[in-house]
């Protein structure tokens, strides 16, 4: 019996570049949840996060020939999503709707997200889940991005270095500092 070989992301994007739209759908299925998890940690709104991930895929669709196999497909798509998320945050800041809700830490922010769509709402009701989310939000932007990419998305240092366009040494030191900051913030939970 012949074993079905799963194509790599890079093989799928190559097929898509050759005109095979099914390969694009396969890439969407592989990355939609990972990307929505990534951008949701910045936007804190499930609808906005889904919209942004759709925009990301549309950009991939429109600019499929811009991808060259010098980088991994995952780093390319994370870079696109990260740039769109940053741009969305800048827009929100300009609209002044990002001020208190993003910088303060009232409990209202942890109203469960639509539990029909995800399970996080349930977990947010637990005290530890809320506190961890608060601690992540409290981090400065570079540390927040790095902790999400490393410890939640579990990407490699190399991938993070490519996505954020910073040296690997900087990635490692920021990961360590971000972890220490989280540990400090969450310490009072144990006291």
């Amino acid at each position, binding site marked *: 019996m012949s074993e079905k070989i799963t194509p790599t992301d890079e093989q799928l994007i190559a097929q898509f570049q050759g005109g095979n*739209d099914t390969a*694009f*759908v396969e890439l*969407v*299925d592989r990355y*939609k*949840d990972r990307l*929505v*998890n990534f951008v*949701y940690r910045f936007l804190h709104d*499930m609808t906005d*996060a*889904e919209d942004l*991930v*759709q925009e990301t*895929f*549309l950009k991939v*669709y*429109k600019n499929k020939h811009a991808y060259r196999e010098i980088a991994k497909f995952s780093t390319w798509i994370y870079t696109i999503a990260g740039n769109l998320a940053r741009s969305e945050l800048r827009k929100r800041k300009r609209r002044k709707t990002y001020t208190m809700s993003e910088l303060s830490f009232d409990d209202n922010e942890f109203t469960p*997200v639509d539990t029909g*769509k*995800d*399970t*996080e709402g*349930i*977990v*947010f009701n637990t005290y*530890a*889940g809320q506190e*961890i989310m608060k601690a992540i939000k409290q981090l400065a932007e570079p540390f927040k991005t790095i*902790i999400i990419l490393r*410890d*939640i998305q*579990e990407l490699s240092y190399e991938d993070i270095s490519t996505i954020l366009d910073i040296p690997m040494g900087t990635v*490692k*030191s920021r*990961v*360590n500092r971000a*972890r*220490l900051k*989280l*540990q400090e913030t*969450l*310490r009072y939970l*144990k006291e």
Partner: protein
Amino acid sequence: MQNTECTFVCEQYTDYKENALSSETKLKVEKHLSLCATCSDIFQELNEVINNLHHFPKVTTSPDFTNNLMSRVDDLKHETTWHKIYKSTYTRVAGYAVAAGFLVALGLNIWLDPVSTINPQKVQGFAGDQNAPSPTIESLVVGADSASGGVGDTLQLQNNTIKATNQSMHLVSDSK
């Protein structure tokens, strides 16, 4: 953290956990951890933080995510050329350039001819000058008289011509 050694050890946490330290540094860290309860606690707490983050609840996209996306992709495929032009950045940039050009032209006009552009009512003879007094016949005659020839002379000449014509008519009737 208590002192510089504690700071140094805590900075090594990630590399220590990922077994990326040199054997010498690793020994140094382990020796410090065995003696320093504070750093030992911090390492323990960091392990818990990372464990929590690795098992952090994941959000998932809605069931119709892919269908919605593919219908947007279909819209993209059927987008007309004109729509693409309308939506393109270049078109927007061209629009801004035309608007900027218009403003520059207007600015130049004001700069070169500020009176007529900014306050046209101050210019004599301006067609849109609604408040200007209507000219009278006298003013026109005076105005014309002040020029060479003048309307008064013309009127006098016309009277003389009429008289001459009348005389000619008398002569014609006499001859009959």
